[in-house]
């Protein structure tokens, strides 16, 4: 068993009954106040129909969704530029990257719709990261490498935030985006000679870690 598995194992012990009781108490304490709000029918409906409900959500949930939206803006802009860069993507990969790009654009629309007036604006981006990846839209290998990086980052980012959405009506939607990012990562990684997955258990990343990785691309 490697270190990562041990990390995950640390979260569970044989005293499972006790842990569950503990978990329930924690959950109740954490969500006692907002859960009244969250359980209300209009909010649940709003989440389902992705109408604006940002103003009614607890601030920490809005923060999570805006964090996700920022990453989706980044990804959507990346594929928009890549998919329209003449001669960049070899023919055999075009359908794949067009599909990925369409998903990221859909995620932006979904999150923007859900957040309504609470949605952050699209960040200014620099996919060369200050010149480090100057050939990002002329060299397919650079493009595919950054694509895999962004997708893996997205997977780890959503995973790291899932706990903050426990007991909220947006958890399922976030999970449904999370696994799509994983599909993307697994589809792109082999293009640059990487296995689709590194281990049996994918690791989460904290918001701080994700932002540190994304910041070079935000100008």
């Amino acid at each position, binding site marked *: 068993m490697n270190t990562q598995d041990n990390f995950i*194992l640390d979260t569970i012990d044989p005293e499972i*009954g006790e842990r569950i009781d503990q978990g329930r108490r*924690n959950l109740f304490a954490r969500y006692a106040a907002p859960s009244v709000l969250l359980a209300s029918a209009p909010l649940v409906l709003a989440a389902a129909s992705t109408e604006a409900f940002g103003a009614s959500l607890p601030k920490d949930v809005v923060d999570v969704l805006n964090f996700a939206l920022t990453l989706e803006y980044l990804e959507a802009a990346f594929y928009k530029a890549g998919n329209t860069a003449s001669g960049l993507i070899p023919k055999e990969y075009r359908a794949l990257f067009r599909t990925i790009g369409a998903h990221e654009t859909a995620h932006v629309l979904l999150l923007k719709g859900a957040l309504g007036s609470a949605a952050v604006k699209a960040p200014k981006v620099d996919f060369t990261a200050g010149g480090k990846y100057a050939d990002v839209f002329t060299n397919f290998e650079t493009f595919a490498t950054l694509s895999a990086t962004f997708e893996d980052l997205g997977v780890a980012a959503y*995973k790291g935030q899932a706990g903050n959405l426990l007991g909220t009506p947006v958890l399922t939607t976030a*999970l*449904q985006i*999370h696994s799509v990012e994983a599909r*993307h990562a697994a589809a792109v990684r082999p293009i640059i000679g990487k*296995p689709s997955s590194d281990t049996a258990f994918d690791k989460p990343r904290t918001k701080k870690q994700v932002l540190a990785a994304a910041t070079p691309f935000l100008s």
Partner: protein
Amino acid sequence: MSDLAPSRRHVLKWTGVAASLAIAGSVLPNFGISAALAADLGAGDIGVLNYAYALEQLEAAFYTQAVKTPYEGIKKSELAKLKVIRDHEIAHRDFLKKALGKKAIPGLEVDFSAIDFTSRASVLGTADVFENLGVAAYNGAGKLIENVDYLAVAGSIVSVEARHASTIALLLHGFGKEAAGGKNVDFKGLDGALPPSKVLPAAAPFIKTPVTADSLV
């Protein structure tokens, strides 16, 4: 769909029959005669973890067989990929078993008679069904989880299942839209999310041991 082997259609047909039965009975399926032999998943987080454990048992058994008796004309690179997935599913299964301890359901007896393990299309078609079912199952079960630690565990597994789904899609279709999710992702860019009441009937034809989930919402 037209290029899929008869066994894939068979799988889907079985799934449909099982689902109809479940809906007709308005309960989760109990295909067993004797309740004493049934595996009940239990309630709450235990129920969700046992649910995941049941699905991982199914996947682990499937890939173990697929690697043990490789389909005709399998490429070295394909066998290598199936071995990686097998090892992941075994790791998931064993992890969940350990986490559940004494509350774990017994080892399930599987029924793969509908799968032709000599056929590439049958094996990869079934793998495609299992992986996408797994992704939708974990996504749908997230909201049933109460302990944040267990949500983290489920999250660490589900994205690997999604990666597997892509690997299988790459083997079946190459670098096309399918590898990014294809028809499993809707126009909103969302993956599937299914409740246990939809997932268990789909898995039931492949599991001999009766599995009941009366307490799992």
